[in-house]
Every structure is written in C-alpha cells, then in structure tokens.
C-alpha cells in the first residue's frame, strides 16, 4: 500500500503529458485497490459492529452499572441512606441464609433438570437419527414444547401439580402412590417441589437439545456405524462409543447453555408459587431460586443495591460452574479419543 501511495508524489516532477496519463492510471488502480482492501480488511468488522455496539449499550453497560449499584445503598423506600455502601452488600450476602437456601435450591433443581434433560435429549436424538416413518413430523413435534410460551406451559404444569385436583396426583394414584386421602402436596417440601419444577424445565428443553444433537449427528459418516455394527457393537454401545465422542463440541455447547439457563431459572419457580407475587418460592422458600430471590429483594423489598450484589454473585457463580462443566464434559466426552 505504501509503495503505491508514494508513487504519485515523485510523478509531480515529471513532464505534464506523461504525468497525466500515468497519474490517471495510478488513481484508478489505487481506487480499485482501496475498495478491495477495504472489503477484505474492514468490511467484516463493519458487518459485525452492530452486534458489538448494541452489546456495549445494552449488555456491557448495564453489567458495569449493575456493579456500581451493588456497591451502593440503593433503597427505593429509603433515599436517606448514605450513597456508597462499599462491600457491605456483599458481606451481608455471606451471612444471608435466604441466599444460601436459594443457591442450594438452584443447584438442586439445576442437577435434577440438566442431567436427565441432556441424557434424554441424546437418546431422543439418536432415535430420530434412524430411518423413521413421518420423519419430519417427529422432528418438528419434538420441538413443539420449546415453541410453547414458557408462561403458558408453566401455568398448565402448575395446575397439573396441584394438590387436590391435579393430574399428577391422579396419575400417581392409578399406581397406588399418593392420591386418595393423602394426596402429595407438591408445594410442601423441597424434593417434591424440585421434581415438579425440573419436570417443567425438562419438558421444555429436551426437544430443543435433541434437535441440536441431531444436527450434529447427521454429519457423522454412516460408514463408522456400519463398521461398528460389523464389529458387533449394539445401538447403545454405538451411541456412547461413537456418537457422543464425535459430537462432543455440541455437547459442550449444550452443557454451557443449560448451565447458564439452569442457574438463572426464574419463570418456572415463580409461577409454581401459589402466591407468586410474593416471590418467596413456597411458604418456607422450598424452591426459591437465586433469580427469584433477586427479584424479591429488588422489587419486593425495594433494595436494589443488595439485589445488584446478588446478581453479581450469580454472575461469578455461573462463570465458575460453566467453566467446571466445560472441563468436565471435555474430559468425559473426549477422554476416549
């Protein structure tokens, strides 16, 4: 670039006709050159810039502002407090039994939902990967729960798991469990509430993850399976020894996604609550997740500073867990390579 640019400078000392001709050629060349260079070098940045600009305005800025708020006394119902709180909000967090209870619940529901969800998705995907009649119908059908608005499905599940007239108890009653005179109160203790909420999460996301897995599985060559079949590997063994290692990147991706989603779980526990505007997650916080607790502290207790500190804590926890998960899945899925 610098050489072509330097060229016109000495040309000004040349004779007029010569200069005009060569100078014009130069300029045309340079202009085309410039466009080309621009296209190659800067166009990609320009094309991806909108995302980053919007991310800066609506992603990074709120994140940083949230960090500032978490160091402040920001009570909507008490503007008289001193402006800065320092690390007070964070130190309060460490001794807050509600926070640890919510963290415990979040992890409990997270484990109950993520693990079966991804395993089932894997099985469903490998079934869909076979030759089936009405293949498209099955593949589209499996995605339907994902398309359903989360609020709508949660409301249905909330009724499904109700104590007196719920279908869950009716179905269990058919097998002689619960039902009758001693119906299971799904909202009375942690195990039942967690199972109910995990069921909602699983129902919604199994199909979505299965489709991701299916897409990855389609790229695996059929020869590998044929060879394995000749060597005597059954479908189960093929799934674990061939499919899983080969679609490992997408597994890591889904694990990270469900970790983030699972730790931010909000709508399901919120609407499962009979008194949902209180956001207590059950009479004794049986299923109050961190997301719900942040909402309660911010909008019910009107303590935005403390809620911001909780959000930051959740952010850090999510980062740590997602990192650990990635490491672990890499190990598990890639270890046999």
């Amino acid at each position, binding site marked *: 670039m610098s050489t072509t640019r330097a060229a016109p400078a000495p040309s000004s000392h040349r004779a007029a006709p010569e200069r005009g001709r060569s100078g014009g050629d130069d300029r045309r060349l340079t202009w085309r050159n410039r466009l080309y260079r621009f296209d190659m070098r800067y166009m990609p940045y320009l094309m991806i810039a909108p995302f980053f*600009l919007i991310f800066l305005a609506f992603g990074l800025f709120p994140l940083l502002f949230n960090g500032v708020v978490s160091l402040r006394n920001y009570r909507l119902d008490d503007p008289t407090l001193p402006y800065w709180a320092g690390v007070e909000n964070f130190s309060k967090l460490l001794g807050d039994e509600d926070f640890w209870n919510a963290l415990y619940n979040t992890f409990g529901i997270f484990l109950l939902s993520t693990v079966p969800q991804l395993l089932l998705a894997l099985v469903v995907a490998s079934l869909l990967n076979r030759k089936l009649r009405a293949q498209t119908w099955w593949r589209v059908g499996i995605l339907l729960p994902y398309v359903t608005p989360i609020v709508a499905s949660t409301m249905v599940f909330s009724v499904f798991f109700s104590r007196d007239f719920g279908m869950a108890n009716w179905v269990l009653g058919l097998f002689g469990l619960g039902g009758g005179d001693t119906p299971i109160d799904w909202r009375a203790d942690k195990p039942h509430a967690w199972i109910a909420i995990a069921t909602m999460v699983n129902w919604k996301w199994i199909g979505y993850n299965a489709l991701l897995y299916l897409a990855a599985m389609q790229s695996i060559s059929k020869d590998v399976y044929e060879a394995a079949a000749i060597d005597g590997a059954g479908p189960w063994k093929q799934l674990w020894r061939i499919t899983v290692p080969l679609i490992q990147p997408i597994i890591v991706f889904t694990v990270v996604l469900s970790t983030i989603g699972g730790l931010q779980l909000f709508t399901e526990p919120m609407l499962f609550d*009979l008194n949902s505007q*209180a956001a207590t997650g059950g*009479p004794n916080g049986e299923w109050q997740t961190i997301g719900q607790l942040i909402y309660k502290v911010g909008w019910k207790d*009107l303590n935005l500073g403390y809620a911001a500190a909780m959000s930051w804590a959740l952010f850090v926890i999510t980062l740590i867990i997602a990192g650990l998960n990635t490491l672990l899945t890499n190990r598990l899925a890639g270890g046999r390579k």
Partner: protein
Amino acid sequence: MRRSWFHWARATAIGAVSLVMVAACSGNSGNSGSSDSAGGPVTLKINFWGDFGLQDLKTKYEADHPNVKIQLNSGEYNAQHEDLQKKLIAGSGAPDIAAIDEGFMVQFRGQSDKFVNLLDKGAGKYESKYLPWKWKQSLTPDGKTQIGLGTDVGGLAMCYRSDLFKAAGLPTERDQVSALWPTWDKFIEVGQQYTSKTNKKFIDSGTNLFNPILGQQPVGFYNEQDQLQMDGGPKVAFDYTVKAVQAGLSANLASFQADWDKGFTSGSFAVLACPAWMLGHIKDTAPGTQGKWDIAAVPGGGGNWGGSFLTIPKQGKHVDEAYKLLEWLVQPEQQIEIFKKVGNLPSQPALYADPAIADFKNPFFNNAPVGQIFPKMAQGLTPQYLGKKNGPTRVAVENVIIRVQNKTLKPDAAWAEAVKEADKASKS
C-alpha cells in the same frame, strides 16, 4: 494511506457509538414539560386492574369534554403496581392516573415526592366526605401530602353456603347464621360442629381467617412509629387461626388458585370471609351456585379487606386535566354508578344512605342486602395503621400459617417461627 483509512474507520466507529448514545439519551429528554396548553386535545391514560366500572363513565366524560380522550388500561393486579413502581424510578412512562390498592399504598406513600400532592389541587375539601381511615391511608404521616383519593373499600362479611349448612343441620337464614358466631371462638365451635357432622372442611384457608381478624384489631403488625408489634393484634389473630387449623377446619387452599376456585363449586369449604369485591369473584368463578351462597355478618364486628385509590404521578404531562377527571370520578353520582355496575363499595359514608346503595340486594347471594351489610362493616372499623413493611410481614406470617396447615411445622412451634419470620421481613 493506512493511517488515513484507520482514521476513517475510527471516525465511523465513533459516529456509530455516539449515534447509539444519542438515541439512548433522547429517551429522557421529553419529560420536562409539565402541562400542555389548554384547549389542545389531551389523552389521559388510566391504569388499573380488574374492573373499576369505568367503561361507561369514560364515554360520558368524553362527551362532556370534547378535548379529552380517556385511555383505559386494565392489567393484572400485581403487574400494574410493579409497572408503576418501575416507571416512577425510570422517571417517565407512568399513566396520568394510576390506581393503587390498599396493600401497596404504604409503599407508594413513602415516595410521595413522585406524586402530585392533591392537597395543592384543593382536594382537602373532600376530607370530611371520606371514611377517616380511608383518607388517612393515602396521606403521608406528616399529614402534608395526599397522594390519592379513595375509590372503593372492601368492608367485610362472611359468605356461607346455605345448602351445606342445611346438610350439616345448621341454620340457614342469614340473621340466624350471624347470631351463631358473635365471636371468633363461637365461629370455631360452629366449624367443629360442621366438620364433625359432615367430615368436610369448614374454611378455605387459615390465612383467610388470620387477615380479617387482624384487620379488626386496633393495632396491626406495626405501630405508628413503624415498630413491629407482634404481641398485640397479630398474636390474637394468629392464635385463633392456629386453633382453627388444629381443629381441622381448614381446607388449606391458596386464594385465587385453581384448587380454591374449584372449591367454590365442589364444596371444599362452607364459609369464606368476603369483602364487597369478593362477591363478583364468587359469581364469576361458580356461576352454577346461584342461590346457594348467602352473606352473614363477620364475627367480632367491623373489618376491612382491600380497597383502592386513584393517584396522579407527577411525571404525567397533563396533571391538571388528570386532576379534573379524578375529581369528577369521586363525585357521588359516579361512585354510585360504579357500585351499581360492579359492586365496589364507595369510601364516602354519606353515600351509604343513598337508596341506590342502601336498597341494593344481590340476587346471586339469595338477595342478600349487600347495600346494608357492607357499609355497616366499613363504618364499624377501627382505623389501623399499616406500616411500611406491612406487605412483606403479612406474607411472612401467612407462610408460617401455611406451613402449619401442610404439617411441615408443629403448631406449638408456630408462634416463635412467626415472630422470627416477621422480624426478618421487617428488616428486609
């Protein structure tokens, strides 16, 4: 050359960023205007929940005021309050008139600087017309700022299923039923008679026993200095509640949930504490039970549950026009119109003598004279101060009651737990 291109790229980036920032900032610049010039067309937005009976009044007001258009925006109860709270913080977007319920009033009264002081607009002349406690609820503690004018009050009565009462061998005529339970102790005795005879539950939930009893006490959760007073009113209400739960009277149903709604038709419970606005809910939820429900007096005298206010957030652009509309809405003619339409009981006691209210009988409830029952309860009420943290504290204690009901907490440990949870809520 490279340098100049770099300049160009940087300039573009800076330009784009500043564009975004300008766009982000300009959202704030519009809220400085206070009031439009009179005469121009003005749109007034009213946010409320459920049915405030405003539809016909809107048409009437618009006909009389050609320059005013009214936009009615009914949403979900909690969503509307939370939306208002967010708009108040954001500094823009609040409606011209916002309805606020009694349960949220203390929270918003604490932010009185964000509302138009109706006393400045001359609303003081209405003070004598209102039930004194209703007027006080939306007045700041120093008495200098009135942020809202009351619309309806709950009043309190006891709804009962006369068919179930008959099956249990209890009297069914409303005066006789009222005579059954002059006190809450008697009420629990009647409940025990009912459950032993029919093997069915008597009340819907312990929490719906706790709240009306607490509402009758001279002091609620907080005294006027906003200190938690658990040993007074709350203890009385809590003891009755636990007693009723232990006697096996409660169906343990959460209000406004599917099982509760089903309970109205399936006979899961036979009585329900009901304020005026509950009548509409029973009628809508269980239309098939027409004539089976009736209304008796609540044990222990007067009481109140719920009731709303209309406020004018300061950030609105048409504050003056909004006040004119608000003032019109609380006039007797409109208040009676609303009562006839949706049954909301006005908070101006002089209206209770009006034949339109006094002679009104509700056909769904076996022609119960609701125009007599509810005003009497609203007037018999002792004004109670609701503290700043009343809402969360109530939820915390209700949760303890629910845990007693679902047997995850022993009744004898319940009061200590209630005190602990209430204390936590008061400091939240």
